[in-house]
């Protein structure tokens, strides 16, 4: 099967949906001739022109809000934020407007809008360019939040996100843009809200998402050499959570480790803990272990960033902690 880079897979999803549906339009910073800061829109301006691939001024609040208005009036905008860290500027339009409009208008309107943005660290990009804010928006009713871990997932999930008639935040990981992976040439989509078991195992369940999936897979290979058999669940969508898949796995293994790149408090991992405590407490043979970032902004110097962020060895230690208590 042919291989694509993650950013090429994203571009292909955009191109296919734009060819299929003329109501799909793109805008963001530098996405036109520049091809996007991460190359995810490279070639789209040449194929679809300036009417459908539009470079915006640095006005995240207004241009995301413009997406809300366009989505409310017949279009399907797929809006890029150059760094997800700047989603804070557009939060008003996402949280108070897009997420609520259908509901508070009594169901009379749909807001089929996608906001794509790169998350994550491990690049010494510093505290304001390394954030993962998926937890903040998962908190709000009316938004779906997606975190693809591979080129295959990126293409399949993005197509589903574009076809979804709701507000979808599509968080791509910066470290993954250059990852190559198999992507079929035939048409496919991946449903939102469905996790994927990346590795079956019987001793411990790891639930994770985005870039951490790859660290967990490496950690699992090392743990296998010590006869620890790890099951890895890649959430793919963090909101809504695929609770069923998680519970089924924890019932089997009795041990849960949640691996999350970002801060622990009030996060996706906290939500999973709450769900297991409520619906699967007696499946557990040991307390849940979380491997997350330290509760500080992500620092710049590589040695500091390494200390703060999860690593393969921290994941291995986390699994062993889960099994030893």
């Amino acid at each position, binding site marked *: 099967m042919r291989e694509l880079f993650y950013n090429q897979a994203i571009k292909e999803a955009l191109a296919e949906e734009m060819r299929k549906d003329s109501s799909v*339009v793109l805008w963001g910073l530098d996405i036109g001739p520049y091809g996007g800061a991460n190359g995810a829109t490279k070639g789209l301006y040449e194929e679809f022109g300036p*009417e459908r691939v*539009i470079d*915006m*001024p640095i*006005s995240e*609040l*207004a*241009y*995301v*809000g*413009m*997406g*809300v*208005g*366009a*989505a*409310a*009036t*017949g*279009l399907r*905008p797929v809006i890029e934020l150059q760094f997800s860290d700047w989603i804070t500027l557009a939060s*008003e*339009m996402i949280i*108070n*407007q897009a997420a609520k*409009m*259908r*509901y*508070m*208008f*009594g*169901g*009379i*309107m*749909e*807001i*089929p809008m996608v906001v794509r943005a790169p998350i994550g660290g491990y690049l010494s990009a510093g505290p304001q360019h390394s954030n993962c804010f998926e937890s903040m928006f998962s908190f709000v*009713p*009316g938004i779906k939040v997606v975190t693809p871990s591979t080129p295959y997932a990126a293409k399949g999930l993005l197509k589903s996100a574009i076809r*979804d*008639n*709701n507000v979808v935040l599509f968080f791509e990981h910066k470290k993954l843009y250059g990852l190559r992976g198999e992507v079929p040439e035939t048409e496919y989509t991946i449903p939102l809200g469905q996790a994927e078991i990346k590795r079956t195992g019987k001793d411990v369940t790891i639930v994770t998402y985005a870039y951490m999936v790859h660290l967990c897979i490496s950690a699992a290979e090392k743990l296998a050499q010590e006869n620890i058999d790890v099951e890895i669940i890649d959430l793919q969508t963090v909101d809504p959570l695929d609770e069923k898949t998680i519970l089924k796995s924890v019932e089997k293994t009795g041990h849960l480790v949640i691996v999350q790149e970002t801060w622990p408090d009030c996060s996706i991992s906290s939500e999973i803990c709450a769900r297991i405590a409520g619906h699967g407490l007696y499946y557990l043979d040991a307390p849940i272990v979380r491997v997350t970032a330290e509760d500080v902004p992500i620092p710049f110097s590589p040695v500091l960033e390494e200390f703060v962020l999860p690593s393969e060895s921290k994941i291995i230690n986390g699994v062993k902690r889960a099994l030893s208590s």
Partner: protein
Amino acid sequence: MDIPKIKLKLMYEKMIKIRYFEEHVRDLFAAGELPGFVHLYLGQEAIAAGVCTTLRDNDYITSTHRGHGHIIAKGGDLNKIMAELYGKSTGYNKGKGGSMHIAWPLLGILGANGIVGAGLPIAIGAAFSSKYLKSDQVTVCFFGDGASNEGMFHESLNIASAFNLPVVFVCENNLYAVGTRQSEVRKVEDIAARAGAYGMPGVVVDGNDVIAVYEVTKEAVERARTGDGPTLIEGKTYRWRPHFEGEPDTYRPREEVEAWMSRDPIARFRDLLINQNIFTDNELDEINREILAEIRDAIQFARNSPLPAPEEALQDLWA
């Protein structure tokens, strides 16, 4: 004045509808019949009526927290607006939104809004849609003097002019944002002066002169409709009531309020219609009577309507 008589009648009807509707809401609210909060449009009728009389049914508007006037002037059904204020299931939003969130896209009403200034980015999005779909629809964006200090005002005007969007920005400058006199927090007196900073025409108009509002807006709407881009209109006006019903209006001098109320936009328009022999006193009184009956019917409709079933609170989140 070469405005067709039918348009003048429409403007008058819209103003009277708004006036009577809001006066009744004021009294219903004081009597404890309406939950939550209401922000009344009394005194500003000439802007909603003058602007919306230039628009087609399928032109878009975005509105504000003080939006009853806009929604009525755009053709909103009085029964459904009143029922929404009562929180009934027969309201436009099935009781989910209330006064500040009434929307009915079938009349181009993309929503009143509880966030000051939030209608501006949404309006440029609607304008983008029309331009992209080549539909020649125009979007009118209502907002107040307070909103003109929000970042989203500046960002939206910049994008509107940069992309030549078919949008007309209508600022209702009533001199106060809640309890803050705008002259204390904004150096520039005329908000329309900000238009030049964004490369679009800016027009100041007497917001209590419905004919002037109509004429200025008509020109701006035609400009937008023919692809010549956005305009910023600033209507100088005044709200007769406090920011919300129940608020102690201690921050506005009594003489100022009374001076503005004595320059009633409806009385002024009525005088003009009679002096120019367009309508007689009797004809206008007849219109008043008919509209009063409609308002009373709307209140009965709302009172008699059922409340939503509580479990409906869980519906309508997802498409």
